[in-house]
């Protein structure tokens, strides 16, 4: 296998060399515990942590350095936001509003809370995956304490109207959280421009390390701890800080923000070439998610009728292409992706989905290669498919 093309940047990205270089000193030289202030190497770590937090606050547009809380992942930031706010506002109310297309970190936390006396509204989305701000407003009740809607969807790339939803939340004085894990590095993110109260970030989606994220929590928002123990993160999240990981997150964020316009342009170009090429070469396919500026610049998601997604992935892999699918079999569950079902796809169309997500290093050559290898794969699987056989017989009648 000579050619190898990575088309799964929505799943994770490689760690940039500059990012690794920024991390290394915290493993080897500045290895002190940032809480150990009575000796030099501890104080150095503490100071470094402060500087990193300050930089992250600036890059995200936070008003205050104290509004940045580092976490152990995007999932942790999401879980903390949901459970922490729900518990802190319990006396005010027990109702949460979210959408049907959130990441499992949000949905899982909400389902957990439902078992513990909370009530959750899972808003429908339109055929492109869009949550309407009007629907959010209509769902608000006297006991609503939290709204959480993602900035951009990881499967079909829908960019949500976060600013508008934030205004609705503000008008009703309800805490608003957004999962911006897929958005960083792919669109401008400024917490004050967006008007959000909380925002989740995960480093490995923009060429940072895995296992580190952050939660922006606007001053004034009350939140219970998810992790109890020491006094780290202003007593809000115990655990000796992963300084190297944090340094990696901040370096990757810095690079992503500095190169945003350039990278978005590249990714949009590759995305659109992929979409166009696939639509031209493969009949009976459907682009899932919105088109144009409402779509995440690096996401492509198609359903191919009469074939199943895992088989597509396996054949792509045999051709050196890494991609992903929302089919049930590919995820090891019995149902296809909740996102594809939420936009109204019938099960058999959802099973035939393929997500290709580009990066800023994706080349025209990579795109051409996909457009070359994919059509025969789909045709081969269709020739093996009883559904396609039925379809052809119906056509010939």
């Amino acid at each position, binding site marked *: 296998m000579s050619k190898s093309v990575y088309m799964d940047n929505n799943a994770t990205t490689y760690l940039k060399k500059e990012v690794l270089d920024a991390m290394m000193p915290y493993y080897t030289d500045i290895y002190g515990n940032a809480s150990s202030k009575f000796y030099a190497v501890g104080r150095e770590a503490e100071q470094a942590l402060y500087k990193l937090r300050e930089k992250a606050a600036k890059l995200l547009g936070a008003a205050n350095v104290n509004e940045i809380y580092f976490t152990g992942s995007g999932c942790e930031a999401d879980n903390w936001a949901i459970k922490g706010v729900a518990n802190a506002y319990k006396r005010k109310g027990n109702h949460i509003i979210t959408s049907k297309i959130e990441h499992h970190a949000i949905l899982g936390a909400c389902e957990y809370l439902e078992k513990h006396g909370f009530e959750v509204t899972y808003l429908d989305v339109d055929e492109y995956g869009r949550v309407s701000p009007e629907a959010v407003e209509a769902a608000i009740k006297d006991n609503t304490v939290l709204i959480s809607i993602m900035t951009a969807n990881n499967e079909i790339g829908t960019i949500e109207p976060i600013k508008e939803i934030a205004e609705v939340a503000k008008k009703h004085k309800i805490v608003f959280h957004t999962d911006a894990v897929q958005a960083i590095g792919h669109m401008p993110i400024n917490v004050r421009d967006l008007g959000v109260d909380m925002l989740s970030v995960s480093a490995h989606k923009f060429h940072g390390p895995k296992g580190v994220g952050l939660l922006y929590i606007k001053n004034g928002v009350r939140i219970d701890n998810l992790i109890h123990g020491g006094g780290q993160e202003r007593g809000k999240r115990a655990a000796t800080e992963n300084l190297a990981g944090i340094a990696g997150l901040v370096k990757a964020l810095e690079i992503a923000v500095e190169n945003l316009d350039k990278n978005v342009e590249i990714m949009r170009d590759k995305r659109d070439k992929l979409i166009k090429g696939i639509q031209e070469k493969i009949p009976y396919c459907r682009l899932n998610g919105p088109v144009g500026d409402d779509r995440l610049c690096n996401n492509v998601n198609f359903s191919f009728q009469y074939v*199943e997604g*895992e*088989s597509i992935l396996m054949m792509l892999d*045999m051709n050196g292409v890494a991609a992903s699918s929302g089919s049930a*079999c590919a995820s*090891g569950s019995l149902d296809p992706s909740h996102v594809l079902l939420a936009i109204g796809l019938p*099960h058999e169309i959802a099973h035939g989905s393929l997500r290709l997500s580009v990066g800023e290093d994706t080349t025209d050559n990579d795109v051409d290669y996909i457009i070359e290898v994919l059509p025969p794969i789909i045709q081969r699987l269709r020739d093996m498919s*009883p*559904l396609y056989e039925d379809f052809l017989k119906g056509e010939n009648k």
Partner: protein
Amino acid sequence: MYSEKVMDHFAHPRNVGEIENANAVGLVGNAKCGDIMKIYMDIQDNIIKDVKFKTFGCGAAIATSSMATEMVKGKTVEEALELTNKAVMEALDGLPAEKIHCSVLAEEAIRDAIEDYRKRQNA
């Protein structure tokens, strides 16, 4: 995740296709669960002379379809009915636990085809 045998049968499935004048046709599964298998047999003097399949499904579903058709080809109807999902999996050097449900399809499709054959014989 998959054994070499599974990968081989997925990449080079045996007996894919249709049999025009098949006297036994089986169809199991549904699009909702994500796996559908259709099987065609040509049964002469109680022996499965030829067998072909078409499958909509994951790698495990396609590989078990391929292996199961290999295992019943040339067998008597009674022998084919004895084929279990377990035997097919063993012949493939195993499947991941979450894929076992996808592999049941082949056994069911063979039974369905033979039932169809017997109905036609009695008609």
